[in-house]
């Protein structure tokens, strides 16, 4: 039911995956067991008492008595791998008390969560906060526009000599102005002057798009409602899940919802300003619609692991207001569907890029776009890796993609289905679909 690939895609980092793999041997688990809902085990660590590890399979959710701050920890991964690979080693048995207790707590807290769905906020206070925020953003944007104009006035040629402080301070001012979306874009400019040939073009493009965003915000009232929402979201206007669900419940025309069999296609984790982020790509089986689900966690807090690449679920997504490729929230998961990948048929490169262009027309600030490519082969040409499809079209792979040789080994020169993120210049593969397997590409 679960595959090793799926389990390993839950790993918080490469090191945990490695350690989890070494713990996936029966001899290190004096106690192992499973029921319909959960698996559990005791793992002999370096201390006297073994660690108690348990997994609630309905999501999945993990718990372990070890002191590790990783989530899931290596014991959780090891236990899960044992289930995926040697299920016969885990005897079916009634759960011990420590497992029962935890499962009980979990179902209670789920109910509590559902109960508190409707927030009782004070509309007047909310409106006041929004007003204050709008004032701050306005000042921040005027400041940013001046900064942009100063750069083109002095010439891009001066930029390679600017210290990181130059970018960081501009970004920090935008954080203070409560425009974190713009702050992130400004900070990401810092590396462009050192990114090799063609950097002035890339820089001018990014500056131009930032300028369009500032202009767009300036005449927000004249834009169509969906684009208004997109501009606000790009600037970093907060959108809480509760608010979104409330709007969905009130049938807000900007908030769409979609029921489907959702397949988890791939996952990317990233770090930004003390935040760990994760972008999970979902794809609707009926609608063929793609949806990014973004989640963030502060500091040592664990990231959500309930969306496992290669699995799927029947359920409903609610989409944030916006254009192009709105991000989604998983509103309801009804039935888990373990493996759907084999029924997916990817498209040719030209078609996929046309769809990207279409989305870009609707949202000029789109950064990542999901491509589900069919019949592509990895090719090494002109000192880099590419994917080439049956018609001979090619897309370059990201130089940061770690596993081009694995891709080559899996293909053996035969066409594959590859899912990945396209940023307008390079493709980052996230998973491979062979005739029999869904292979997630770990970071």
């Amino acid at each position, binding site marked *: 039911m679960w595959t*090793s690939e799926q389990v390993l895609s839950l790993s918080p980092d490469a090191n945990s995956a490695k350690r989890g793999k070494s713990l996936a041997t029966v*001899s290190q688990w004096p106690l192992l067991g499973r029921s319909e809902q959960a698996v559990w085990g005791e793992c002999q660590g370096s201390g006297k008492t073994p660690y108690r590890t348990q997994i609630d399979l309905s999501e999945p959710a993990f718990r372990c008595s070890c002191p590790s701050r990783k989530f899931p920890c290596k014991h959780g991964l090891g236990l899960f791998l044992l289930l995926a*690979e040697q299920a016969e080693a885990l005897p079916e048995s009634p759960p011990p008390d420590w497992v029962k207790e935890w499962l009980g707590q979990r179902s209670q807290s789920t109910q509590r969560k559902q109960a508190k769905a409707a927030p009782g906020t004070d509309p007047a206070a909310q409106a006041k906060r929004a007003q204050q925020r709008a004032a701050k953003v306005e000042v921040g944007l005027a400041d940013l526009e001046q900064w942009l*104009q100063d750069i083109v006035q002095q010439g891009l040629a001066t930029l390679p000599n600017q210290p990181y402080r130059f970018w960081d301070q501009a970004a920090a001012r935008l954080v203070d102005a409560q425009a974190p979306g713009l702050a992130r874009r400004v900070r990401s400019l810092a590396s462009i002057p050192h990114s090799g040939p063609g950097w002035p073009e890339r820089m001018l*493009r990014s500056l*131009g798009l930032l300028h369009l965003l500032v*202009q767009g915000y300036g005449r927000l009232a004249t834009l169509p409602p969906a684009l208004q929402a997109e501009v606000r979201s790009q600037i970093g206007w907060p959108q809480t899940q509760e608010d979104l669900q409330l709007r969905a419940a009130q049938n807000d025309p900007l908030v769409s919802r979609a029921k489907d069999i959702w397949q988890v296609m791939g996952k990317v984790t990233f770090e930004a300003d003390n935040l760990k982020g994760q972008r999970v790509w979902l794809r609707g089986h009926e609608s063929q619609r793609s949806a990014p689900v973004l989640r963030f966690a502060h500091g040592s807090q664990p990231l959500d692991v309930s969306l496992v690449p290669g699995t799927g679920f029947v359920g409903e997504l609610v989409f944030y207001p916006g254009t192009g490729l709105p991000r989604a929230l998983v509103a309801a998961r009804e039935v888990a569907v373990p493996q759907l990948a084999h029924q997916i048929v990817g498209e040719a490169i030209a078609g996929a*890029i046309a769809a990207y262009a279409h989305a870009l027309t609707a949202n000029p600030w789109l950064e990542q776009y999901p491509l589900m490519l069919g019949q592509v082969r990895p090719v*090494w040409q002109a000192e880099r890796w590419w994917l080439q499809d049956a018609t001979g079209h090619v897309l370059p792979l990201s130089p940061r993609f770690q596993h081009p040789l694995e891709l080559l080994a899996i293909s053996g020169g035969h066409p594959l289905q590859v899912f990945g993120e396209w940023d307008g210049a390079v493709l980052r593969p996230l998973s491979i679909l062979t005739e029999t397997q869904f*292979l997630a590409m770990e970071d």
Partner: protein
Amino acid sequence: MDAWETLVATALVGTGRQTPTAPSGEAAVTALVDQLDWHQPEQALLGAAGAIALHRQIGQFPLQPDWPIVEPCTLDDLPVVKTAIARHLDTAMNTYPEVLPELLSLIAQAGQRLPERQLPRLLQMGQQTSALRPYVAAVGGQRGQWLAAQQTDWSYARVGGAHGFSLDSPQCQDLWANGRRSERILLLQRWREAAPAAARAALEAVWTTEFAKNREAFINGLETNLTMADEPFLEAALSDRAKGVRQATANLLAKLPESRLGQRMAERVQLLVQLKGKGKRLTIEVTLPAACEPAWEHDGVNTKARSDQGQRGWWLEQILAATPLDIWGDPIAAIRALTGHPWQAILSSGWEVAALYQQRTDWAAAFLDTLESQILDDALIGQLLALLPLPQQKQWLQARLPSRPNEEDVIRWLLLVVRSSQPWDLAFSKRVLKQLTVAAKNSSRQAIGLAYETRNLRLTLHPDLAPAVAIALEDVTNDANSPRHWESSLLDLLKYLSFRHEMYRAFPASE
């Protein structure tokens, strides 16, 4: 310059130095930029940049280059190992790389191959560690060979495994004619295993056109399945231009007692060493050579001795090492006569090397039975011991099992076991463990060294010993007198044995 290039050029120098004008180009672009107010140059430039960049991005089409298509790999391949074995392989690569040869051999024996995804990393490890290469090449299947052909650093694996190995295949012929040295060495080795005479004939055919470094490597490759049929070729190679080739050839010929080189050595030695008398009255008369003759040098005798050796003794030792042992008659009588002999060191080293070269079980046994306590070099004892068939080794070691838990005896015995490096059966492994437990209750300096050397046992003791080691470990942990380093040595041993234990369990057919 098109509209975009003009904009980039202006932006690069700055609007402070160059006033931008509305760029012209396609109708769509012109329509956009004409709406901008070019009296505010910075703002207009940024606006035009955003619009044109977006327009370009939307209109971008993927390239359609005319690249040659790589011939795909055949899909008719060996079966892939099951997931549990793939996981063990991962664990071995990460944590127990020493176990890889054993694991890869098990996979090869089962006639299976590695999952595609693990190939790159394993091929990489083989690239870094040449000893691992034959094992890796044997389990890659067609996919491994195909992949190796795509990546020049991995070309060694193009040779493939014993499965489906065909000498006449165009692939092998091409590899032998055009491959890199590492590929050809591996190919020659496989070839010698399958058809020794054909392999030698192939080597003879190209011999004169090869570089000295290749010739030397290839001569060493003939050691696999070496027989008298190789002798004429080797005898000729003794006159090679390169010293390395001559030396390697002489070493091989010394392993063939019936070779002409062996006969020449026998003639030489009879003038220098004579055995007089019989049985217990046997005595040995030795005359050291006065000079190293050119003919000796031609046969591989090295003139220069190590600084701590006498030259004349060194020449004799080398001649003895290359002389057929049969001329000395009964090994037990000969070795007994060595004790107390003024040239004992030279005679015994010469004969020991000869016994190893000529794979003489009787001489090895005679050395071990008669002279064991005087052979100081433990490694040499290990090598001599390894010459004996496994049951005989076990017998020999069991006969020397310490009768009492006397520390010194136990340690000496364990060192012999450690050095003999054989895969031991479960019964014998249990005996070894018992002695280990005795040594573990010991804190002498010698025992500390031994604790370190038990590393070698991780791969030679029977994997089913793991549960017994776990009990022994508990015992040692609870014993306050046991030094800590033993605890960690036993824990390490346990980890390896447990891993090997599970690894073997993943291969149901093999026993």
